[in-house]
């Protein structure tokens, strides 16, 4: 299974790198927020608060929409061609989500680099630890995105996902910390795993590593990843996938 995962990862990464402009386009919206909203936010908050929020936004928008790829593969018959090979269903999923996670990391590094140019001053160790968390989050989101893409009618994927992503971004506290929100909204945001991941990311970017918030964020991220990959594999196994 490891070999099959690697083969599919390499193949998908090659395809992604053939369209480098796609990587840049994926990060444009968070960059626009960074450049046009960041300086305003910096008057009431810090770059170490905003940039992790934009990374979560990037994750949800980039890997959350990864299912588009499999919609295309389903329509062209490529997915079915691969499903008649002896390759394991988990490998068919992992080969794709690892590529999405690598793409997310490239985009996040670009975002952080521009953030530094604007005034972000996060410690290198915190940024690296944060990016590891982002990789795991990227895997989870991509796996879920594929599951949604294979479950829904092809035409529904884009409207459903684009409708789901915005409230998830806002509820995570990406633009303003949820501690500023009214009680009901703050309570509602606790349902979203992205809030915990984002709070951990902010702690790491602030140079605080051994805190309860980081511990909870890491635990939520790992559990979310395990559940998402299990759901993704189950859907890849389904007969009509």
């Amino acid at each position, binding site marked *: 299974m490891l070999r*099959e995962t690697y*083969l*599919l990862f390499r*193949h998908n990464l*090659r*395809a992604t790198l053939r369209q480098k402009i796609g990587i840049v386009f994926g990060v444009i919206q968070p960059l626009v927020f960074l450049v046009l909203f960041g300086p305003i936010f910096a008057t009431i908050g810090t770059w170490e608060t905003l940039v992790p929020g934009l990374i979560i936004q990037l994750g949800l928008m980039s890997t959350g929409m990864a299912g588009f790829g499999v919609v295309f*593969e389903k329509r*062209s*018959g*490529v997915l*079915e*061609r*691969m*499903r*008649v*090979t*002896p*390759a394991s269903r988990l490998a068919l999923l992992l080969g794709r989500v690892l590529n999405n996670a690598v793409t997310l990391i490239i985009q996040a590094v670009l975002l952080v680099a521009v953030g530094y140019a604007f005034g972000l001053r996060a410690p290198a160790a915190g940024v690296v630890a944060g990016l590891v968390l982002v990789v795991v989050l990227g895997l989870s989101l991509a796996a879920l995105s594929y599951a949604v893409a294979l479950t829904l009618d092809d035409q529904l994927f884009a409207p459903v996902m684009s409708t789901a992503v915005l409230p998830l971004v806002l509820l995570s506290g990406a633009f303003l910390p949820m501690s500023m929100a009214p009680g009901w909204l703050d309570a509602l945001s606790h349902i979203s795993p992205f809030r915990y991941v984002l709070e951990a990311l902010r702690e790491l970017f602030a140079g605080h590593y051994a805190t309860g918030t980081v511990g909870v964020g890491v635990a939520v991220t790992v559990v979310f990843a395990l559940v998402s990959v299990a759901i993704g594999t189950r859907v890849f196994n389904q*007969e*009509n996938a």
Partner: protein
Amino acid sequence: MIKTVGLRKTFKGGVEAVKGVDISVEPGEIVGFLGPNGAGKTTTMRMLTTLLQPTSGTATVAGHDLLGDAREVRRRIGYVSQGGGINPAAPLGEELELQAMLYGLPREAAGTRVREVLARLDLTGLESRPGGALSGGQRRRFDIAFALLHRPVLLFLDEPTTGLDPQSRANLWDHIRALRAEQGVTVFLTTHYLDEADALCDRLLIIDHGRIVAEGAPAELKTGGRTLDDVFLDITGRSLREEAGV
């Protein structure tokens, strides 16, 4: 090579697409699986290629149990779906090499095998092109190339020549005959072209409303000076069928 007993598929919502099909195919045969739209051809083929789980019944395909040993079945069969599986955007040589390696071939052997298959199907020189840049006939031959990389003993072809011009059809028939003659590959194919079934197949199975309704060599079925079209219409009727996609 294929042996099914009471193979049945009922979809969610209660649609009974295949109602207990018994099929027997011997090694080296070219068998045509005919039927009107919605008769159950594609559903049966998707079950035999492990893509759909039968609701009930048993089947042995290429020497392995379809339900208990699906991965071993996949190692031994090739499948060309009705719509094909060509990526319109990627160089097909890369796609072929990946497919060969997913069947377990080491990288170097995969490259060699890809070149062999391309040569066999008159596709050499086209491997750097994306699928979108090829003609219908070339795309269909690439579909077959994907299915042959691992030297399958049994090849499933779902309407392999639909939409092709007469030259491309004749060319594909030659390739299918050569596969059987030179490598002993067993072929199980569906088609709506009865002249194709007549010219290519040793034996025909006709399915209608999810049941096998006739079986025999083309010459055996064409009794009383009837053409295969007459036989088919006599057996399945002349009323139009809905495109059920099963």
